[in-house]
């Protein structure tokens, strides 16, 4: 039983290497690239395996062709409290949308819609 479960998880780890491709209705196989252990490496043992929630690119779900820098409320979830841009592995954004997102955030920063750094 436990073994079967582990096998399943390793399969999931393997598929996660597909990355968040923008095509496809579900945003493609999301999830973050597995860590140093490689796909399916660490989950072999009978430890309690937890199912990681699959992260999906939010912009792919919305089928966004353009990220507007003027809508600060859309960009706000992608920055840290201190004003840093969150990395892809935290948010699950796909590569293409992350690229657009960073540009949008930087523009918004320049016109004081988003902070460069938190103020004291």
């Amino acid at each position, binding site marked *: 039983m436990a073994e079967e479960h582990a096998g399943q998880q390793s399969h999931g780890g393997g598929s996660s290497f597909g990355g968040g491709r923008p095509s496809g209705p579900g945003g493609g196989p999301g999830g973050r690239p597995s860590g140093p252990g490689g796909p399916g490496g660490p989950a072999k043992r009978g430890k309690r395996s937890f199912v990681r929630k699959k992260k999906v690119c939010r912009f792919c779900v919305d089928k966004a062709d*353009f990220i507007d820098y*003027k809508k*600060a409320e859309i960009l706000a979830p992608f920055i840290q409290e201190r004003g840093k841009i969150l990395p892809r592995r935290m948010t699950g954004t796909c590569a293409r949308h992350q690229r657009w997102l960073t540009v949008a955030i930087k523009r918004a920063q320049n016109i004081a*819609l*988003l*902070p460069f*750094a938190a103020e004291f």
Partner: protein
Amino acid sequence: MDERQYDLIFICRPDTPEADIDKVIATLESTAAEKGAKIESTAKWGRKRMAYRVQKLREGYFVYMVLKSSHGEVVKELERRLKVADPVIKYLTVRLDEELKRQEKLKRHRDKRAARRPRKTVPALTGATSMPPVSSEPAPVPPSA
């Protein structure tokens, strides 16, 4: 040559009277017209809190404009005007037409694919006779035991 599109945003001091802001907008419009550009739309976003302090001010009066021009010279002149205008504390010009073009292209592509997809699945379903309506590929692999 293609028409370029710019976004022009500027922020005025929050205590400027409305008349002064209108004056700034008017000068920008006339300058743009002189240079053969056109301001498509102007939107006053009103007083908003800025994300950080600019010239020790926490709030600002935001004005947003869309500019259309066939060359970039206008932007230079407009930015110079904004720099010398007294109530303006911050401004930003962004060229957007290339991104909008890309957006159009992606949208067209998506529409085309969306139009093609149902046509592809319908014959597959009829060909597979009494298969349950699986949404994905026609799945040529029969369920052999």
